């Protein structure tokens, strides 16, 4: 914090005024941009969520709570919990994806960390490549893999999981497969950076003191990777909850998630107020979920970001 006068940082004597003028020049433009082009739009859809849909798809006054009550279930045709269900399903999708990704990322992270130095970079790059490859491409490819003619589908048919000739998508399982495959690198990378920094002497000390393998993992290793784990989970949970492309391509019309619902309202039904309400509620819930999670496990994740 600046003092009244003559604070010195990095060898420069700066007054409060000095800090202010330099902040304006440096942080000013960026903050201005993000405020105008993000904060204002977010506030605006908050406003729009209280407006009414116009006849031909526009929107305007009067202000109303209708969008929110409709969301809560009091729709045209009686009480219908459709939208709360959608939000719930999206949260489950987000959490589920994060959970499965975590289960898969842990072995991968330890695998890469355990590689001898020569191969470590290669192993890591092999995770980086899918990470940097377009999500859309990696998603629609599953339509090919889960098509009726593919060997995977044949296998499923042989196992009696599905009837011959029908694809394995659209289905909830297909969505999860696509989600986990797409988001796995997002969790591996931050997790790996924590795993790499593990102080193994702590695990050795625990083992030396008589702890069995499970306890060593739980008490000596897991706490050390928590920052990376938390960062990775956050990096997966948020986009996963709001996804509409993957449920759209692999789930079809049957499975509607929050992202699909918002997209429908904005682009197809042209009911922007209602769409804004869904978006706002969805965003709020995700942020609340994050806040709860951050409270629970400390603020370390933020630093890693």
């Amino acid at each position, binding site marked *: 914090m600046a003092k009244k006068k*003559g*604070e*010195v940082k990095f*060898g*420069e*004597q700066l007054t409060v005024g000095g800090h202010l003028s330099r902040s304006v020049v440096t942080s000013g433009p960026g903050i201005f941009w993000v405020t105008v082009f993000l904060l204002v739009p977010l506030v605006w859809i908050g406003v729009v969520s209280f407006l009414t849909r116009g006849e031909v798809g526009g929107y305007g006054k009067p202000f109303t709570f209708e969008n929110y009550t409709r969301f809560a279930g009091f729709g045209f045709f009686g009480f219908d919990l459709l939208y709360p269900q959608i939000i719930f399903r999206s949260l489950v999708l987000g959490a589920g994806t994060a959970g499965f990704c975590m289960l898969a990322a842990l072995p991968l992270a330890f695998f890469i960390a355990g590689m001898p130095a020569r191969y470590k970079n290669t192993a890591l790059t092999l995770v980086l490549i899918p990470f940097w490859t377009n999500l859309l491409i990696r998603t629609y490819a599953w339509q090919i893999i889960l098509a009726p003619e593919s060997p995977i589908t044949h296998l499923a048919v042989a196992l009696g999981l599905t009837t011959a000739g029908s694809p394995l998508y659209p289905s909830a399982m297909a969505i999860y497969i696509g989600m986990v495959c797409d988001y796995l690198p997002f969790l591996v990378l931050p997790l790996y950076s924590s795993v790499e920094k593990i102080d193994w002497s702590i695990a050795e000390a625990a083992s030396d003191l008589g702890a069995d393998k499970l306890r060593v993992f739980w008490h000596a290793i897991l706490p050390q990777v928590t920052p990376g784990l938390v960062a990775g989970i956050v990096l997966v949970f948020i986009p996963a909850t709001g996804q509409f492309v993957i449920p759209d391509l692999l789930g079809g019309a049957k499975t509607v998630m929050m992202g699909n619902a918002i997209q429908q309202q904005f682009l197809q039904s042209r009911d922007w107020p209602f769409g804004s309400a869904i978006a706002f509620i969805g965003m709020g819930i995700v942020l609340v979920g994050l806040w709860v999670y951050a409270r629970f496990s400390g603020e370390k994740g933020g630093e890693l970001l």
Partner: protein
Amino acid sequence: MASEIPAIEVENLVRRFGDVEALSHVNVTIRKGEFFSLLGPSGCGKTTLLRIVGGLDMPDEGIVRIGGTDAREIPAHKRPVNTVFQSYALFPHLTVYDNIAFGLRMKKVAKPEISERVKKVMDLVEITPLGNRKPAQLSGGQKQRVALARAVVNEPQVLLLDEPLGALDLKLRKQLQVELLQLQRRLKITFIYVTHDQEEALVMSDRIAVMRAGKIEQMGEAESLYEHPHTRYVSQFLGSCNLIDGTVKRRGPKEAIVDSIVGELRVEFGQNPPAAAQRDKFTLAIRPEKVTLCRLDESAGENRVKVRVDELIYIGSETHYVLRAGEQRLTAEAMNVKVGSQGFDIGQEAIVYLPAAGLLVLDD
């Protein structure tokens, strides 16, 4: 001598961090060309003081004068002062040559002159072949020399050194201590040296200021500080000291007979007795090397105390003894002049002689 402008004057300097006073009304005058050390443990304010002199920090109260000029409004980059940092702070993206030339380039010195001065300084600190290397390719000792060269090449009025040898191993540190001292003598630049290592301060300094909790507790030449500490803190910080409480029985102009837990002791006051010498009760301090161990049959004479040998610690050139006289613990150090046992073993009884001139009165 008195009319010469001091290199640095610090008057009534105060620096607060929140509620804590890192520097509390500090006054110090540093003479031109002297090697002056600020000695103390972490948190005593020595680095803060150094940084304020260098302009890297600003005081809340007080005056700093460099060469007689009030430096408070002068920012760091305009002060005729250079710093050698504890972490060396070499510019990672520049070569050794460019690092050293940095200050000269800032002053827009002509290229040929830069080349000449940089080469000279590199020879001086013996890093001539390293010109094209980058800091990442240097060892700790080499980095330290580059940091030194980078500062010294600018011919500052005062050179500030913030624990420059802290990160080096013992042998290298001792070697560089001597080299730094020789360098200072050659260049005749005023050095202000911050350290927590009392031996280092004693080896290198003309004068030392022992600091504690933001204040200078005692300041003076090395020998005077060591042989005449004023307080318990100084006596224990520079070397170690035996402490004995005493009550005055009889008093003379330059001496006193004092009653203590180990018996009657005669104390000589010396040239400048501290104010506490006038009190009825004070604490006496005596350095372990002044404490002489004698055999039991040599108990005749003043200031002799009967002790028991509790511990015997052999350190090669010296033997240290931990002795006990009733409740009083005493340590004695003796050089191993003769080969083999000095004749005192653990559990044995002996006599120690505490010379009257070696017993110092402490101010606290």
